[in-house]
């Protein structure tokens, strides 16, 4: 059976992600409630403002529901703010900001600077170079032993994976390149369901 990929649609670049996933011919479901989460096999957490999303995750009841699904192995892909939400440690966040602790990395919010410092650059990975779009991007300052670094900007990790969790500090959904979504859907989502 083909997987249904959910895109967390509380706030942020969910429309661009949904377009990317749909371009692969995969079913997409926007997720704003725990009921919608039940219908998806995998989840993309988009960029946006992690402080806003963190509050909406709590008020919608999605925080607990997603935590439980991640715990039970749901493939999850977080970009930018989505990566912050998945990280085990968030630096320079708001004191009340919650994260899922699903991947053992320390992430510093907005560490690449403000919008005037936002940039595009090439990222190196084992399956080729990617065009990285970094918007007020977070920095991965530490990766735990279980974390595999897949992509780097210079020497710095920007694309990481631990088990079923994939995280990027950049925005593949803005680069007109669905290869990472394809990797997420085919390698991580479909493989698990065999």
């Amino acid at each position, binding site marked *: 059976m083909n997987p249904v990929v959910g895109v967390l649609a509380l*706030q942020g670049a969910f429309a661009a992600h949904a377009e990317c996933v749909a371009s692969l011919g995969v079913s997409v479901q926007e997720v*704003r409630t725990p009921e919608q989460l039940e219908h998806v096999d995998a989840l993309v957490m988009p960029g946006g403002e992690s*402080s*806003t999303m963190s509050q909406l995750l709590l008020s919608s009841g999605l925080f607990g529901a997603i935590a439980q699904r991640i715990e039970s192995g749901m493939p999850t892909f977080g970009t930018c703010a989505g990566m912050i939400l998945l990280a085990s440690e968030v630096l320079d966040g708001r004191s009340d900001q919650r994260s899922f602790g699903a991947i053992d990395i320390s992430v510093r919010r907005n560490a690449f600077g403000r*919008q005037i410092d936002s940039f595009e*650059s090439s990222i190196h990975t084992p399956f080729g170079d990617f065009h990285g779009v970094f918007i*007020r991007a977070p920095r991965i300052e530490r990766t735990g032993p279980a974390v595999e670094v897949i992509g780097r900007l210079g020497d710095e990790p920007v694309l990481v994976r631990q088990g079923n969790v994939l995280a990027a500090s950049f925005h593949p959904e803005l680069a007109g390149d669905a290869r990472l979504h394809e990797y997420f859907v085919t390698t991580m989502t479909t493989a698990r369901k065999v």
Partner: protein
Amino acid sequence: MTSTNGTSVGTQRVKRGLAEMLKGGVIMDVVNAEQAKIAEDAGACAVMALERVPADIRRDGGVARMSDPEMIEGIKAAVTIPVMAKVRIGHFVEAQILEALGVDFIDESEVLTPADETHHIDKFGFTVPFVCGATNLGEALRRVSEGACMIRSKGEAGTGNIVEAVRHLRNIFGDIRKITQADNAELFQWAKTLQAPLGLVQEIAETGKFPVPIFCAGGIATPADAALAMQLGGEAVFVGSGIFKSDDPAPRAKAIVEATTHFRDANVLARVSRGLGAPMTGIAMDEINGTQRFAERGW
């Protein structure tokens, strides 16, 4: 703007990218650091730093200008979310100053007194992205052709009355729907009628959507107003006077954030609309004479 190691800043993709990140969110007008904190606590995805909210600009009259840099810096220091600020239409030096201050988005805004009655700012010349207001599709496309990376409805700021924003969103999205049905010959006529670049009209016909995100601004005072703007096609909302001119700003701000996310869920809208106290009083359009209509500024 490309450096030797292949890294580029200030590209259209990076500038439009921040607009993508703000979708589904609420951008709140704030006049000091304390309000900025309230906005962030309520879940705002960005704040607009300005000296007076539009309702007060409307009441005070006189010339409204860019805010004091000290005040903008105070707000930048108080929050972690993006900070926007307004410049007068055509006042590119105010924009240069805001860029030097490191604001994240500039609103070339009709709420301030226009500085140039013929020219808008050449927004391609800046690293920082711009948002501009529009009342119809032609105006929106002219702003994109000058480099705007986000369009918002003008609405009628500072009135707490949603009627003009609804008119502008219906104008813009209605014409987009018609263009997607037009044949090639009709597109030339559309470009002429709209007084907009043909290439952008053709892009809408081809992609079925506007080239940059379209947000709603001007007159949002309640969670229901925010959800209305979203159901009409707005991709996020700006709330100006509607929050801090109401009786109890913090819960209203939070309710508008939830309403913007769950804009199609009437049960959520009913729940968050309860017990918010009085919204801002508001002004009916026939109480405003022509010269005080902000939406008529810019072209």
